[in-house]
């Protein structure tokens, strides 16, 4: 009977798959770490498929570039990098981390774009006592209420980026603002971060909307609300394809002429900016980095990045670059690669003065860093985020 054949075949191939892909041995007893004093094995968890892939590409570029410029060594130890695909969310991200920890026996984990994945692997990482350096995910809880001594972050918190804009708008005399962000945790955090800072400075939120996340292609219903709200400006937080759709439609429906757009910098960071074209012209945003920053570290970094990849560096690449930098310092200082030693070393790493983003330091395991007000303008035929003003440092989650 062919049905039996199919099942037999499937059974054999699945069995071989489990054994072959994952190796035999025993699950009983403790797993030994690989550290031999001369090497360090790093698991890079980044999205290689799905909507977040462009961020994964930038993170890998930042990581590779740092290693290439530092002889492939972190704190004197030769690095082996194992890359695993994080996918679009925890359904693929958690198994990827499990694989790196249990199968590849990595010493350190770096990466993770999705906040849900970052929160979901907390217990895995903590019970394995390995260090995880988050190179993007921005949920406040990762280094806040759900903190683990083994999880550190070199990126940002969603609220922090938005708060920088809230504070700036209140100070610059914009009194009434409409806030819009997708209906998911990061969007809610951004609106909250913005509103708290903006209201504290005396501003009024005249309305807010949270369109369905990942399910909105047409923002017209929300744009009409903004138009009739009497707002002097719109604050928004979008990323990826949604940022392209929103910025374009904001211009197409004629809003950009009357109600200026202010944003968390992700709206106009990286590949999405060129896809937005003319529509993004003049958009003001806050972020902890822009390729246009004028400091010696960024000039060198920018040149190296452009010559290596023929692309403009992004905040995502810098986050990975800095992850390598702090890890290198921690490994050198700790003289070991286990999670406890590295976490302790990170705690005393101090202020990084030669980062492309400007000086920053860890406060509660997440960066206290400068934010920049940036304006989209065209330079040499390509859109860039030029620096308008250095808004000074902010603590995470402020």
């Amino acid at each position: 009977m062919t049905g039996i054949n199919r099942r037999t075949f499937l059974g054999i191939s699945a069995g071989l798959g489990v054994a072959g892909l994952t190796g035999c041995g025993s699950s009983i007893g403790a797993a030994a770490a690989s550290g031999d004093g001369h090497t360090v094995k790093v698991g890079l968890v980044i999205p290689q498929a799905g909507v977040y892939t462009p961020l994964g590409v930038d993170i890998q570029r930042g990581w590779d570039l740092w290693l290439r410029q530092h002889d492939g060594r972190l704190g004197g130890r030769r690095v082996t990098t194992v890359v695993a695909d994080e996918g679009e969310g925890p359904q693929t991200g958690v198994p990827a981390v499990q694989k790196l920890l249990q199968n590849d026996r990595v010493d350190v984990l770096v990466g993770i774009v999705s906040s849900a994945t970052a929160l979901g692997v907390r217990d895995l990482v903590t019970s394995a006592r390995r260090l995880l350096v988050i190179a993007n995910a921005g949920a406040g809880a990762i280094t806040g209420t759900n903190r683990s001594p083994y999880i550190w972050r070199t990126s940002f918190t969603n609220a922090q980026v938005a708060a920088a804009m809230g504070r700036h708008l209140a100070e610059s005399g914009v009194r009434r603002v409409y806030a819009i962000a997708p209906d998911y945790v990061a969007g809610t955090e951004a609106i909250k971060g913005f509103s708290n800072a903006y209201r504290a400075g005396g501003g009024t939120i005249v309305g807010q909307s949270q369109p369905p996340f990942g399910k909105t292609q047409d923002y017209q219903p929300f744009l009409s609300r903004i138009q009739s709200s009497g707002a002097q400006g719109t604050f928004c937080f979008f990323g990826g394809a949604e940022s392209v759709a929103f910025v374009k439609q904001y211009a197409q429906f004629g809003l950009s002429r009357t109600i200026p757009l202010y944003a968390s910098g992700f709206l106009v960071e990286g590949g999405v900016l060129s896809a937005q074209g003319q529509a993004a012209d003049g958009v003001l945003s806050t972020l902890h980095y822009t390729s246009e920053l004028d400091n010696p570290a960024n000039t060198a970094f920018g040149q190296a990045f452009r010559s290596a990849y023929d692309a403009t560096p992004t905040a995502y690449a810098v986050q990975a670059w800095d992850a390598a930098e702090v890890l290198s310092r921690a490994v050198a200082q700790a003289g070991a690669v286990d999670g406890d030693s590295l976490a302790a070393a990170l705690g005393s790493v101090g202020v990084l003065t030669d980062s492309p983003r400007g000086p920053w330091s860890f406060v509660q395991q997440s960066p206290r860093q400068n934010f920049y007000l940036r304006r989209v303008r065209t330079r040499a035929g390509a859109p860039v985020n030029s620096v308008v003003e250095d808004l000074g440092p902010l603590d995470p989650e402020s």
Partner: protein
Amino acid sequence: MTSLAQTRAAPARPRLGVGARTATGIAAGTLLLAAAPLYLAPYATTTLTRILVFGLLAASLNLLVGVVGLPSLGHAAFFGVGAYAAAWTAIHGLAGAGALLVGVVVAALVALVAGAVAVRASGVFFLMLTLAIGELTQQAADSWESVTGGSNGLYGVPAPTLFGTVLDQPATTYWYVLGFFVVGMLALRLVSTSAPGVVLRGIRDSEDRMRALGYRTTAIKLGALVFAGAVAGLAGGLLAAQQRLVTPADVGFETSALALLAVVIGGTGSWWGPCLGAALVIVVRDSLGATLDGHGPLALGLLFVLVVYLLPTGIARIRLRRAAS
């Protein structure tokens, strides 16, 4: 639901009870699975745990697809609801079997409500109605932040404890999941191979005839849906115990679709075939996929295409009738 227990004359009644050979097979399979952590590396054990969880989901779905002829594209709703309920219960102090029980009960209740709406449709309309139910459930999981944690999900679910031991190692988690997997599978087998199964197959083959024979077919289909939903809820509870995290993706379209595809791949003819389909899907997606530089979906796509062409089923066809026929 009385007719579920009745054994009226119905076409092609299979052997009732468990034959000696089958019993031996089940016992041998269980023993082999139980010994797996002794000869598999930790990651292989973790993968096998995922397979058991997903396999139980697929097997419960097969009760609907293969036995009753109801192709559901929203089965992850019950799986996810069970997972959320169990995770919530565990976080609020009751980990282990108690959390699983809560998951099963809540999933069964949701299946009862959803089923009352869905069982009137059939074929592709049932497929899309269940899809809608699944998507609405996922949306609720996304929106009800105070209970579900929103898009970040419920994380930090405590590991189950048994006799004072915390089951948080790959092997101990595996045995815990395996125990309940066996319970769930036996329950599914009992329903699909004994008297109720005969009635359900009769409905699949000709609902009109069964109605003419005096069976309240709508009520029976609803009963099957609630039972399948309860087992899916058990699988969900096990997911919460294993992954220690539940997110809206576990409720949504992708999980439902993969479960349905696992059923089709494994073949709907047997009660354990879908577990093999599930195993293949999990291995390709999670273990192989993570190493392919982003070509995991490609591998999954090729698997689907190859299975269809190279391994045509000789087994009972799924009745997804044309609406107009």
